[in-house]
């Protein structure tokens, strides 16, 4: 079975929190190169690793990972505000 690409916000979240790839790798228990592969969408994490990442960023898994290309968080927030406002 061919695996599909999973999109993620790891690079954005890591940048926001000012964490280096090496620091993130140490916190989630992987090699620092694996963080690069994850950020570029070249490797799909296991469920366990996805949960470790979501726990670290204190965000739900579906906010970080998606099967659809991800919009910028600010755009999603605006759309959510509009939806709630309606």
């Amino acid at each position, binding site marked *: 079975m061919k695996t599909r690409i999973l999109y993620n916000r790891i690079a954005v979240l890591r940048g926001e929190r000012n964490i280096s790839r090496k620091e993130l790798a140490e916190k989630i*228990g*992987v*090699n620092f*190169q*694996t963080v*690069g*592969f994850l950020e570029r969408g*070249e*490797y799909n*994490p*296991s469920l366990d*690793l996805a949960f470790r990442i979501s726990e670290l960023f204190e965000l739900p898994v579906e906010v970080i990972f998606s099967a659809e290309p991800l919009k910028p968080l600010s755009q999603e927030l605006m759309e959510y505000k509009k939806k709630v406002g309606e």
Partner: protein
Amino acid sequence: MDSVLSQSSRRIGIIINYIGLLLLLALHYSGKQIGWNHMFTAGIAVMLALSLITFFMIHMKTGLWKLVHTKSENLDERQMQVTREALEFSYKVLAITTVSIIYYMAIFSGGGVDMVTVVSLLYLAHTLPSSVIGWKQKEV
């Protein structure tokens, strides 16, 4: 610190490494059949040196050797997946190569397996998984 080689450099190194090994074997068997002379000896020495240099550059300095020869508990899930895929592919190639050589030797050489062939197969068994990773992965 492991050295970083680009994928294309790794691929070139892998090709040179195995061509060196094949030429070394060709020279060895040609020397055995035709008769040894300085040309064959010099050629074997050059091919051996070429194979050794590329072996150290591709397998040792990049950390590929360590990656495929370490315990799985020291690897993360991506490294385990990459290593497992490389070992799976290498097993197929090695099985076909070994069986072909054994059958060839049994039919055409009276069953005797040359020591150089044994050492070459051992080398192939140990280097093929890391060569597969070096060939396929953008980053190692």
